[in-house]
């Protein structure tokens, strides 16, 4: 029963995977354009973010239509609500990728303060987490949805490493502060991508269990602040 509805839900899951792969590619391409200091590529990528936004709106619209016409309940309702939420998360990740394009273009003729090693590594790690989180979502794999957020610590550790390294440059030569800041901005954006992967995993568990719970990673901001 409900074959039409089920195929429409399947189609939405596919749409989420498509949007996800667009975001993954945008993150990797933007970091690569920065590494190569390819300003034309960054300008193109900056403009291409509009496609991600449009895709998100299309998903939202499809979900609204399904809610209005099919009156989903229980698991179906949780799934559709989560698709709305995840489409929003992906769109924001696209904005972080676009932020990297902004950095590259604004840097203009300035050279990179240091060769990019940890930042591309952060990007690959975040993209890998995102890819697996979306797979866990469409497959409703609770074990994976619980495990992936723990890897956020690795991304945070990389961010801290980049931060300390850049600060050393600044201490040695305060005139590097602007160029250090550009790269810190990029690292921060990638760190935020990984944080949002955790939100996707939270939604996956919500679809499966019906309970919405915050997944805490060890770097939880609140904990850090409370410790200080």
């Amino acid at each position, binding site marked *: *029963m409900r074959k039409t509805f089920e195929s429409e839900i399947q189609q939405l899951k596919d749409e989420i995977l498509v949007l996800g792969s667009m975001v993954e590619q945008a993150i990797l391409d933007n970091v690569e354009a920065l590494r190569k200091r390819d300003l034309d590529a960054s300008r193109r990528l900056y403009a291409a973010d509009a496609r991600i936004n449009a895709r998100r709106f299309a998903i939202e619209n499809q979900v609204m239509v399904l809610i209005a016409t099919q009156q989903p309940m229980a*698991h*179906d309702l949780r799934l559709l609500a989560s698709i709305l939420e995840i489409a929003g998360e992906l769109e924001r990740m696209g904005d972080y990728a676009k932020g990297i394009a902004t950095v590259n273009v604004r840097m203009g003729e300035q050279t990179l303060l240091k060769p990019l090693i940890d930042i591309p590594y952060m990007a690959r790690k975040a993209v890998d987490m995102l890819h697996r989180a979306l797979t866990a979502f469409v497959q409703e794999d609770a074990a994976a949805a619980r495990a992936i957020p723990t890897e956020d610590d690795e991304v945070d550790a990389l961010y801290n490493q980049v931060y300390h390294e850049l600060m050393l440059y600044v201490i040695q030569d305060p005139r590097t502060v602007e160029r250090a800041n550009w790269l810190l901005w990029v690292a921060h954006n990638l760190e935020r991508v990984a944080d949002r992967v955790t939100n996707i995993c939270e939604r996956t568990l919500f679809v499966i269990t*019906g309970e919405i719970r915050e997944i805490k990673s060890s770097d939880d901001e609140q904990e850090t602040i409370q410790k200080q």
Partner: protein
Amino acid sequence: MTNNDYVLETRNLNIFYGSFLAVTEVNIKIPRHKITAIIGPSGCGKSTLLRAFNRMNELYAGVHTQGEVLFNGQNLYDKNVDPVEVRYRIGMVFQKPNPFPKSIYENIAWAARIHGYKGNMDELVENSLRQAALWDEVKDKLKQSGLALSGGQQQRLCIARAIAVRPEVILMDEPASALDPIATLKIEELMQELKQYFTIVIVTHNMQQAARVSDYTAMMMLTGETRSGTVIEFDETNKIFTRPSDKRTEDYVTGRFG
């Protein structure tokens, strides 16, 4: 919740049509001043269970009931309980509006009169019609036949008639299934008003209606070798429609069964 928070409670309730066990082992408690919906696929015993709450099943040939239905702690099926008195305390509204072929005024006054009402009849008629959200539409034509009203108005007249005798509980068996969407919404709005004075139990095929109007939901299903109806899940409505515990409830509310 304490026992006083429940107006009705069934204990090991079994209902037979002749030798056929139609409803089996129902143990639920109906919270006071709340709306409880009974949902489930066709033929699972929803209406039969509803009619057990005011001994209406006895009006059908061959039906007999085992177990207890406690109304404020008193078993309605005790030998010394008068079924007419029960139906006066626990009123009923049916699927098809069934006003008496009398004037709007008499539809309400008649029931009150036979129940021995001695107060101001005009006041009672007005108050009942007001509570049923019908007064403004009929106040200038109280002498007209109740049958001249629209279906939705007739159903509200039946609700006014039911509440005129000040019952504690109103049972509603698909009260809006014969009405158009606007009349349906009026009945649903009215139920929200009425629950501050009465406890309402409603049987509905319309799951969206159950989700919209009720505070609690009982999910019924045919089970076992005898294919008898029973309540498989009873919970807050919000939970039943967002994260039910029983897989069969999930399948039913998501439209994959029944």
